[in-house]
């Protein structure tokens, strides 16, 4: 079965794999854009890693089909199966998996020197610079911190100029500080290299920050696939529920007030004020607004400390945890989420189409 690719045409990634394990079966068909970061998101045990390993060829699915931007890497029906080492991909494992007998420079060179010169698009210098490895080149893997090792692993994969970069929860084995250390590098990767990335994760904040496109996986099946912005606010999906539920909005910086340490950015629903002075006018920013930071009023509040107030229309309501309800809101085309108690939703008589004002207490700039 070849999935019909409606979003990306031939320039995309089409994959379908069916495979049965003793206690689990993987049965996915997906088509995602051939550029940008696509996050594969789902609870542990949902088959994310298995899917990624099948795409890499590390696991051979019972039957599978895979084409990457027009090149068929696997078509079991036609007897096509490129072995892993012949697929022009990069793979970053959960643990760095560096070669213990080689220093950082030789680890980086391992893949690079096996790629013909004519097929190199990322230079070694570029990979070193992107991941900030200049000072680590002569070190042995055993002497590096977890975060440093993972940066080397990412650069090592990049240095092979992959036509598809696969990352299997590259931050999962790191503590919060190390995660914060690596995330900016991943964002630079996204901004500076035009390379499709499949990024497996079970952390909503990473997804919100890095992914353009989202594939939701549950029990070995794809439950939804679409843009991150859209999927994060769809009330029929688990991502839009619970404590971490949030809307992601892309905006353009329109004014900066350095003396207040503030910037202002425009999106379809109005102007967002941000406590972040280091932005520049014209810069695109992605912000995250958590559902629990949004409250609703029937009239525009005067005399409030809240600066971000948007006129919105209620799109839908959906029960959340007991006593709470998740409301999706249309702000001039952008979608916001608000999490209210059922009691207040009742008191405001909210129903689809109601016109209300959303007061936003906190906005996080994702970079």
């Amino acid at each position, binding site marked *: 079965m070849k999935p019909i690719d409606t979003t990306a045409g031939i320039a995309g990634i089409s994959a379908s794999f069916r495979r049965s394990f003793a206690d689990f079966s993987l049965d996915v068909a997906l088509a995602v854009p051939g550029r940008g970061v696509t996050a594969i998101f789902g609870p542990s045990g949902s088959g994310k890693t298995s899917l990624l390993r099948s795409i890499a060829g*590390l696991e051979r699915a019972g039957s599978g089909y895979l084409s990457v931007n027009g090149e068929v890497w696997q078509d079991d029906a036609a007897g096509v199966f490129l072995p892993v*080492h012949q697929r022009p991909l990069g793979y970053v*494992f959960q643990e*760095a*998996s560096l070669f*213990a007998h080689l220093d950082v420079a030789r680890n980086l060179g*391992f*893949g690079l020197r*096996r790629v013909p010169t004519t097929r190199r698009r990322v230079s070694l210098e570029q990979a070193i610079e992107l991941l900030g490895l200049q000072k680590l080149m002569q070190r042995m893997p*055993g002497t590096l911190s977890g975060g440093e090792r993972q940066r080397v692993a990412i650069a090592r994969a990049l240095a092979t100029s992959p036509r598809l970069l696969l990352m299997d929860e590259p931050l999962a084995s790191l503590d919060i500080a190390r995660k914060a250390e690596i995330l900016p590098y991943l964002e630079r990767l996204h901004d500076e290299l035009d390379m499709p990335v499949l990024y497996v994760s079970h952390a909503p904040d990473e997804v919100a920050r890095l992914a353009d496109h989202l594939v939701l996986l549950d029990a070995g099946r794809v439950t939804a696939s679409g843009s991150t912005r859209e999927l994060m606010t769809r009330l029929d999906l688990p991502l839009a529920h619970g404590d971490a539920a949030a809307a992601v909005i892309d905006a353009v910086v329109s004014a900066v007030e350095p003396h207040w340490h503030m910037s202002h950015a425009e999106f379809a629903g109005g102007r967002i004020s941000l406590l972040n002075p280091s932005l520049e006018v014209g810069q695109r920013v992605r912000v995250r607004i958590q559902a629990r930071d949004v409250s609703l009023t029937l009239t525009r509040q005067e005399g409030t400390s809240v600066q971000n107030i948007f006129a919105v229309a209620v799109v839908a309501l959906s029960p959340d945890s007991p006593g709470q309800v998740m409301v999706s809101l249309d702000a001039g085309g952008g979608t916001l989420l608000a999490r209210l108690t059922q009691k207040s939703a009742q008191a405001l008589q909210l129903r689809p189409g109601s016109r209300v004002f959303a007061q936003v207490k906190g906005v996080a700039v994702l970079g």
Partner: protein
Amino acid sequence: MLDDASLQALALTLRLAATTTVVLLLAGTPLAWWLARTRSRLKGPVGAMVALPLVLPPVVLGFYLLVLMGPNGPVGQLTQSLGWGVLPFTFAGLVVGSVLYSMPFVVQPLQNAFEAIGERPLEAAATLRASPLDTFFSVVLPLSRPAYLTAAVMGFAHTVGEFGIVLMMGGNIPGKTRVMSVQIYDHVEALEYRQAHWLAGGLLVFSFLVLLALYTLQPGRRKGQGA
């Protein structure tokens, strides 16, 4: 101090041990690799066969080899039809016997090292464009260097000390099959205790030094994956 016969036996022993070690490293590598990676049901039986010389009296092994490779044995029939003659009572026969006898001492350290490396470095290498053979030489071999040292030293030293097999299938032919251990036996039989002392003492010191080197030069077993 050593008479000519002893020197000849010493030279022959070293030649036998060196040949055996080389053969075992070459043949033992694929065998150890297979044992470390296979999920086949044959893994158990093959592993047990490899380990047999650890528990079997060498004389038993030698006896069966003699029967198998003798003029009327199946292997003997084969070697004769190939024009190689029969192997017992030749140097080549001793090499065959020594290879079997010392096999666990070479195969087991290699197998352990290959198992310790695990799947991950091989997968990482594959995603970095290295073919399986390339991966073996550029990742597995360097990571297994300490194990190769152990395997070579143990295989060599163990072959130097063998007696039972040699006696059963090599006999006692000066310059061809009379190795050190047999020479010592001969000396003792002839009541030449001084000569026997030189050889036996030499063998004792040699064995101790080899093990000492192995235990001190190799600081702690390197973990396969580490990073």
